[in-house]
């Protein structure tokens, strides 16, 4: 399995990670190497095997669907690069 530049560009977009055009070949090579190595799983017979979807064998704990926390605007915004007036600031999204 070898990824082409267009596929790497698409993965980069989905990942929201900028990859410069001149780096696409190198990244494609690295990702292809890892994917080729992963391909060996195809040899394993998994017919009639249910997927293991989590790390625990216990039933997850349930709780009442009620608000248990909140009203901490200052703490929530304390680390925001552009937080003001109770909001997170972002670049203009509506033209």
């Amino acid at each position, binding site marked *: 399995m070898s990824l082409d530049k267009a596929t790497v560009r698409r993965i980069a977009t989905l990942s929201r990670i900028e990859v410069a055009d001149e780096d696409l070949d190198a990244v494609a090579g690295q990702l292809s190497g890892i994917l080729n190595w*992963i391909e060996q799983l195809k040899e394993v017979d998994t017919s009639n095997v249910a997927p*293991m979807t989590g790390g625990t064998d216990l039933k997850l704990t349930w709780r009442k669907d009620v608000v248990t926390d909140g009203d901490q605007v200052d703490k*929530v915004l304390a680390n*925001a690069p552009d937080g003001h007036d109770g909001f997170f600031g972002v*670049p203009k999204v509506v033209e």
Partner: protein
Amino acid sequence: MSELTSLTIAAAREKLAKKEFSALELTDAHLAAMERAKDLNAFITMTPDLARERARESDKRLFAGQAGALEGIPLGIKDLFCTEGVLTTAASHILDGFTPQYESTVSQKLRDAGSVMLGKLNLDEFAMGSANITSYYGPVKNPWKPKGRNAELVPGGSSGGSAAAVSAHLAMGATGTDTGGSIRQPAAFCGIVGVKPTYGRCSRWGVVAFASSLDQAGPMTRTVRDAAIMLGAMSGFDPKDSTSAQLDVPDFEAALTKGVKGLRIGIPKEYRPAGLSPELVALWDKGVEWLKAAGATPVEISLPHTKSALPTYYIVAPAEASSNLARYDGVRFGLRVDGKSLDEMYAKTRAAGFGAEVRRRIMIGTYVLSAGYYDAYYLKAQKVRALINKDFTDAFDKVDAILTPTSPTPAFGIGEKFDDPIAMYLNDVFTVPASLAGIPGASIPAGLSADGLPLGLQVLTRRWDEETLFRVCQALEDAAQFPLLPAV
């Protein structure tokens, strides 16, 4: 290295109770050792003022007879645990300046038990790595040096700062986290004890997430008893983590005296891959003999899907990471690199903020989860994971514990294996299967290589059976007589 920094947690606890020295003196001795060993780069942030303040509070409680289980014990906290008011970086540029407004459950429990935080320990960026070389804050040096050579060795990873600090007697113990071996492998490389408990034993709340179905916190200490004491304080149900177990926490320390007489110890025949150091094979054989001499019975077992564990891990873990790390967007915390649009800001922030290995794993994870590839990669890996889990379930029908080497080789040089991600991933070939199965595992320093470097053995047991884990570890520790001090 002072007498105070060479004590075990168990010994220091007794001496603090007898007022042979104060918690402040104990903390000051460690702060001085940290200052002298700055060259190891074990800490990202030292918190001497906070440490002294907490040590003084410990002294008050000791005086009042209200000592907690770890009262006055100086510990290092891996910089993946959020600590209230103290910079938390996950060793990543993208968390620049991030100062949590809350405390992770595990570090809170350790505070409640009276321990004193010395600072935040270096690690691989977002705990992704096996050599502590992906940290934005630079590599950590292993306190151990090969005999006759002046080489700098890696401490292993991702909990490399934790392992180095405990090994060099800068902290009496440290927290680690283990996703595919990140407690056990660095513990082996630095000659200390590292315990990854059962998935769900310790709360993951407030621990920077890497792969949520695998991440588990655990203690790193110089003795098995210290690990049992520390794990007792770290464990327990937390309503803030839905995967944390609503089970009573056993008295791990009490298990230590129970011995291994009558236990059946599984020796998996598949754990002999090419590249396994002959010295580790010899040590593994020795480990079997030690346990036999202590009354246990070795049994050859088969874990047929061992070979598939690493590739399975390198689908599951990056997939979960790509989802977990989506939160680093330059909006709510940490680094922001401006862009003309919101999307451009995201892409530029994440390109600048994440290191090469983290970017690689996010992209692999994104790919295996993307439309058209999900079934072929992610679902396939989840099914193989079920088979790996069944391997262990079947094995534990026949045996009570499993003994293996922790890693295929001892610590290697800073600079080796850096260009080949897969060669680096092979470090975790013995630790990853247990992570996928969610079972507890520990690494015990059991011998030295011809080069004079620590070698570790790994013990695995059934889910929720850390008591048997500690019993086997104690028997190995008793037999191995491992030197507690590296030649630093």
